[in-house]
């Protein structure tokens, strides 16, 4: 699979949020303001890339050789949780400015199913090491793009007379649905 194909596929065609239904909690929760959406997006890209890398190594050098595939879920989730902790600590020490921007979002990512999702999909689709890493990057970018779009739209919705019963969560889902409709345009891309 070429990088381009992988990118288009992960970002648009099989967008994690709009077609794979992964990472919805942060998608709905952190899309109220554009600034925080960008911060969250960056944090997710970062963690997804790291997670893709490490979980692939674990799968192929620990679980597969020792016939421990049934421990996949435990291993991956623990790895991701540790990774997030570790990343948080490292960023805090090394790049306080970055930590300030991403800090609040990092703990949220542990329970972001997009991260575990990308790891499992990498294994299920038998991607190579490099492909796995790229998939992590692009899936994170895809997540970020829809998150930012959503935040832009929701900032405007704050100033619209949305019916009371639809305010908040419901309208966000309807909006996500309409976004997914627009993203249907990417379905069936032959690249």
């Amino acid at each position, binding site marked *: 699979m070429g990088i381009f194909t992988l990118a288009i596929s992960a970002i648009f065609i099989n967008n994690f949020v709009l077609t794979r239904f992964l990472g919805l909690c942060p998608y709905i929760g952190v899309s109220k303001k*554009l600034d925080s959406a960008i911060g969250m997006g960056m944090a997710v890209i970062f963690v997804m890339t790291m997670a893709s890398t490490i979980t692939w190594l674990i799968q192929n050098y620990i679980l597969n050789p020792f016939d421990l595939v049934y421990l996949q879920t435990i291993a991956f989730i623990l790895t991701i949780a540790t990774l997030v902790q570790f990343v948080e600590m490292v960023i805090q020490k090394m790049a306080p400015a970055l930590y300030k921007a991403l800090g609040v979002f990092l703990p949220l990512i542990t329970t972001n199913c997009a991260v575990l999702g990308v790891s499992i999909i990498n294994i299920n689709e038998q991607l190579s090491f490099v492909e796995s890493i790229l998939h992590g990057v692009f899936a994170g970018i895809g997540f970020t793009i829809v998150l*930012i*779009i959503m935040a*832009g*739209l929701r*900032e*405007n*919705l704050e100033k*619209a*007379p*949305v*019916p009371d019963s*639809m305010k908040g969560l419901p*309208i966000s889902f*309807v*909006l996500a649905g*309409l*976004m997914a*409709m*627009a*993203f*249907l*345009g*990417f*379905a*069936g*891309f*032959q*690249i």
Partner: protein
Amino acid sequence: MSNNEKKLKQVGQNNQDLYSVTVSPHMSEYRSVKSVMWNVVFALLPALIVGIYLFGMRALLLTVYGVIAAVLCEALIQKLRKQPITVNDGSAVITGMLVAFNFHAAAPWWIPVLGSIFAIAIGKHVFGGLGHNPMNPALLGRVFLVASFPTYTAAGWIPTLRNSISGITSNMDIPAVTDLVSSATPLAVIKSLRDPSFVNNINEAFPNASQILMDEAASLPTIQNLFWGNIGGCIGEVSAAALLLGALWLAWKRIIEWRIPTFFILTVFVLTFIFGGIDGLFSASILLPFFHIFAGGLMLGALYMATDMVTSPLTKKGRIVFGIGCGFMTVVIRFVGGYPEGVTFAILLMNLIVPLIDKHTRPKPFGFVPDK
């Protein structure tokens, strides 16, 4: 004492609110949202008339269904929400017309009806009604139908009645869809013609495949026919000429602005010219871009849907970005996407990023000095 003097004396006493006090300015163009909307309806009429001429009264019937459904739906929602009912502002009528325009005349009656209801209820009123919908309702209605009932909407196109004027009055029955799907739309033919893997496969397997393709290419309507609308297709999008006529009216009335349609169409033209050929860049015939512009919904989309005020950017620069983006996405979807028609999705996708475009193309105030 003159009449006036008496009046003035009266004023002098205490009659403070004799004259109405409003904030400035005290002059206005006396336009209204209503007049803007009805002008758009008016501008869509030529396309409708061509549609009726080509496809018979059924085209009118479907349009009327769409409009009635849209208007009733809007009125019902506003009544339920205990809001003033504003269906006479014409915006629901436009939505209804545009939804119907996007389908061929053989579609069953419930197609424009469901499309309009979805467009008005989900596309517009969940967000608070006119002026607040982030995406073009009519296009959402179209995607809803295309995704939900592909067999009725994406099946193909129906031939025109151009050879029998008398057909105009007699074509009221619902024809079976399959009877009418006589050939692929021009866009579908173009699509298969420029799919290299497809062409190669075919040539390998069947020596006479090129001949088949040539026949299909020959069946492409000539550009004149595409321009005047003498082709099969959807009710409102067949005649580029009629659509242009209406758009010129709107431009003259300053209701639509030239930037979006111009950059939209120009981008499609340039990109299809460069990438349209199957033998690499610039290998396409100069005619191909014209096919791309006049066939399908591009004219309708560029002139009436991309220019929808509510869902297009605020600033001039933003409108240029928006137009180019629409054109780019249209070509991408037409060339590599699953649908032969990319206009709908292109506009919807660009609608999504309008807030971001607005944010980044905000004009600098006159005499702008950057913050220190």
